[in-house]
């Protein structure tokens, strides 16, 4: 049975390794998140925002030409059609309702690709709350369109200038901001990472993805489960959402796809499941990329959303227990996959998602299998990168 325990552990991974300064905030959240989520009022508000604001349910689309090409049945779960263009908003809608119930007036977030930053800025605009988004200096440059969107939505984008100036460092800065503002601020983490209860809370908000996959698949095929679910993993929130209702259904293979950057052992990679060892990052005991001396290694991926040296504790558990298979890809394979999907199916995927698509080329399956691939986001933000490499 795969489930989180009371202390936030999935097997040996998880927990809350945080400085005392964060304790009251994290404790407040831990004591309240399940209670609030169970309230009918909360559920009503959450469901209606998902339907009317986000545009759920998102389609489960039978990708005919992709299926033909690979000789297997492939459904795409179209999270790219969510408002703001990625799955990230499922979580921010949930967390903004949580923040309101906790009486918070100021919202902070970290972002890599900018999708989570945009999704946070969007719900803050919707609720009229102040919004500050931390983003690595490098990412501000390579995801410029999303920076502009955040500004348009009224958020303040603060550059993180330490370390590799990417997602890890933006997360450090957001955590420091929370330490400095312990009373009025809620931190909307963008993935299934961080101290307990974040990984569990974010997974629950994203679990709407697999909830829909189940009934949509049943409508399409008569069976409410696929043979495999494929998703890319940065921190792992779209994967957690797509896996959630199949975690304990061993008929379903779970395939987590990571970014190998310029090659797993090139020194420029973000393949945590291969390169990672047990450690603590951002408050969670998990797998992460680090030196023998316990210094966190700066990751590298062309896709800002996968450029993270850790993975969520749920995924660390799924991978080390063998429940999930982990695959990683070079960035140029992902570029090819993005081009393929654009020209064969008329869908431009996000770079992060393109990594998941490349898994189709190497994974083993039977021709009669039904695969579901979580199309986590759309590629508008990545057009610059795509054009450079076309």
């Amino acid at each position, binding site marked *: 049975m795969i489930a989180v325990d009371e*202390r936030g552990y999935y097997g040996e991974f998880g*927990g*809350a*390794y*945080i*400085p*005392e*300064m964060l*304790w*009251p905030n994290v404790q407040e959240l831990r004591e309240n998140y399940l209670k609030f989520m169970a309230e009918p009022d909360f559920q009503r508000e959450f469901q209606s925002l998902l339907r009317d604001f986000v545009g759920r349910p998102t389609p489960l689309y039978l990708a005919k030409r992709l299926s033909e090409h690979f000789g297997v049945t492939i459904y795409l779960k179209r999270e790219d059609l969510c408002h703001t263009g990625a799955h990230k908003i499922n979580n921010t809608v949930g967390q903004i309702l949580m923040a309101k119930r906790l009486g918070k007036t100021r919202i902070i977030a970290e972002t890599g690709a900018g999708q989570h930053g945009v999704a946070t800025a969007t719900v803050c605009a919707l609720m009229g709350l102040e919004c500050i988004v931390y983003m690595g200096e490098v990412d501000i440059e390579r995801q410029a369109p999303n920076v502009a969107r955040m500004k348009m939505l009224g958020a303040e984008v603060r550059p993180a200038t*330490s*370390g590799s100036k990417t997602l*890890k460092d933006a997360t*450090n800065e957001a*955590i*420091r901001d929370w*330490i*400095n*503002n*312990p*009373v009025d601020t809620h931190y909307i983490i963008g993935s299934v990472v961080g101290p307990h209860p974040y990984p569990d809370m974010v997974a629950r908000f994203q679990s709407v993805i697999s909830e829909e996959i189940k009934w949509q698949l049943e409508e399409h095929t008569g069976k409410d489960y696929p043979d495999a679910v494929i998703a890319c993993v940065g921190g792992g929130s779209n994967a957690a959402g797509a896996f959630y209702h199949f975690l304990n259904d061993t008929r379903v293979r779970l395939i987590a796809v990571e970014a190998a950057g310029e090659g797993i052992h090139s020194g420029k990679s973000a393949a945590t499941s291969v390169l990672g*060892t*047990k*450690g*603590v*990052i*951002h*408050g969670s005991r998990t797998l992460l990329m*680090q*030196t*023998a*001396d*316990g*210094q*966190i290694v700066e990751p590298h991926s062309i896709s800002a959303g996968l450029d993270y040296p850790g993975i969520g504790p749920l995924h660390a558990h799924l991978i080390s227990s063998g429940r999930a298979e982990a695959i990683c890809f070079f960035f140029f394979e992902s570029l090819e996959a993005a081009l393929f999907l654009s020209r064969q199916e008329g869908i431009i995927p996000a770079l992060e998602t393109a990594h998941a698509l490349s898994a189709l080329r190497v994974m083993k399956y039977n021709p009669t299998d039904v695969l579901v691939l979580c199309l986590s986001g759309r590629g508008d933000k990545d057009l610059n990168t795509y054009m450079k490499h076309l």
Partner: protein
Amino acid sequence: MWVAQQSQSVFGVPLGTQHGLFWIKNTHITSLKGLQKTLRYALSYPNFAPKGLLHPGFRWRTLKHSIMNRIEQLFQRKDKNVLNIYFTAGYPGLNDTEDIILSLEKAGVDLVEVGMPYSDPLADGPTIQESGTAALENGMTLQLLFEQLAAVRKKTEMPLIMMGYFNQVMQYGEKAFFEKVAEVGVDGLILPDLPLFEYENHYKDLAESLGLAVSFLITPQTEPERIRKIDDLTHGFIYIVSSSSITGAKSGITDTQLAYFNRINDMQLKNKRLIGFGISDHETFETACQYANGAIIGSAYIKALKNNPNVAECTAEFVTAILLDRH
């Protein structure tokens, strides 16, 4: 000594009859070598030996614990105006550790906190993070730091504390780390991101058996019940975080903070208390000393070292300016 205060039977016999403890206390044994000598002496001349020492209930670890901890000894000697200074090992120069510790001692500092530089120091502000990044670039590693500290320990009896993040401990191996810390003669540990719960369940017995004083932090938001728990688990001193912030964030002390210090004082905790975060000069040090047993200074000293990397000169000037007529 906390063993004597806490458990009423250090050697398995009631405290009142433990001549041994008092005898040892009075002879000021502070090293393991000295202790071994004493024990050899006691075994050779049992009639002169303290009763407790040869009692069947004698526990070597407990004795070692009660004798070695220099932090406890410091607070027995001095419980006002205690000055604890933090520095990042490997900064400004890779091999400055010894110079810094000896200069701090010479200048009149009571306790030194040695920062293990870390790539992602969540609880620290830009000053300490930058010094850590520079130290790592200089080539500092835990192993080198342990070597440096073992060498320093031969030259000084200054109480030393290591401060770092739990991931560093995990990679070294938790048990190996705690043992190494004790072995090189370090007296205490501060691991800000090690949760109380994990410490209590996995590491407390180990730390206590090695005689390590592990300090925990409390903040203006920490609830009374949790403060009691922290007081229970702490040996050495409690670290009072002056405001809700990362290190080096604010300076000056407000009335709200004073009310918070008073609230803590009213709780009559068993441990001594040092105030840290935002203590940067003589004035803030003085104020902190009025409300606790002393104070901890970190970022301000790192800044001073950045401006004047001549360790001996910088340290003398810095500490003199903090203490003025206090010592």
